[in-house]
C-alpha cells in the first residue's frame, strides 16, 4: 500500500476543508 500523496498542496488544503478531514503535510527532500 502506498500513501496517496498529492503534490498540488493548495488543492490538498481545499480538499481537506471540503472533506472535513485533517491534512498531513510532508516537507521532503528525499530521493524520488
Amino acid at each position: 500500500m502506498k500513501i496517496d500523496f498529492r503534490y498540488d498542496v493548495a488543492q490538498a488544503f481545499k480538499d481537506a476543508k471540503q472533506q472535513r478531514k485533517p491534512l498531513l503535510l510532508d516537507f521532503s527532500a528525499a530521493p524520488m
Partner: protein
Amino acid sequence: MWPDERVARFVNEHFVAARAHVKQNPTDFQQFGERYQAQWTPTILELDAEGVEHHRIEGFLPPDDFLAQLMLGWARIAFHQQQFAEAEQRYRAIVEQLPESEAAAEALYWAGAAKYKATGDPTALKQTGEKFKQRYRDTAWAKKASVWS
C-alpha cells in the same frame, strides 16, 4: 518511515496527504515552508481541516515511533477540538498498540487528561498517576502525572 504498511494505512484512512518536495514542487515547498516555518526535512505537519497545526514531527523516526507520533497528532486534533472521549480512545490506542514507542508515555498522560475532561471525574487523573508508578517511571510524563496520585 513511509513505506511501512501500517503507516500508509493509517494516513490514507485518516488524512488528506500532501507532499511539498524540495525538487518536485519547489514553489509549494517554499511557500508552505514559510507559512508553517518548516526549516528542516523531513518535517511532517498534522493540520486540521482548516489548516491549523496540531502536531509536528521533525527528523527521521523508525516505523513504530513514527506511527505512534502520527497517532499522537491525530489524538491531539480531537483533544484540541474538545472531542475528549474520542481523544481518549485515540491516545489509549497508542499505549495499547505501541507501548514501547517514545510517544507511549505522553499518550498515557493525555489519555488520563482527556478522560478527566470528558467526564469531570478526578479519579481519571488519580488512576493515571497510579499507572505511571508501574510504567514509564523515568519519563517527564511520569513527573507531570506525579501530582495526580
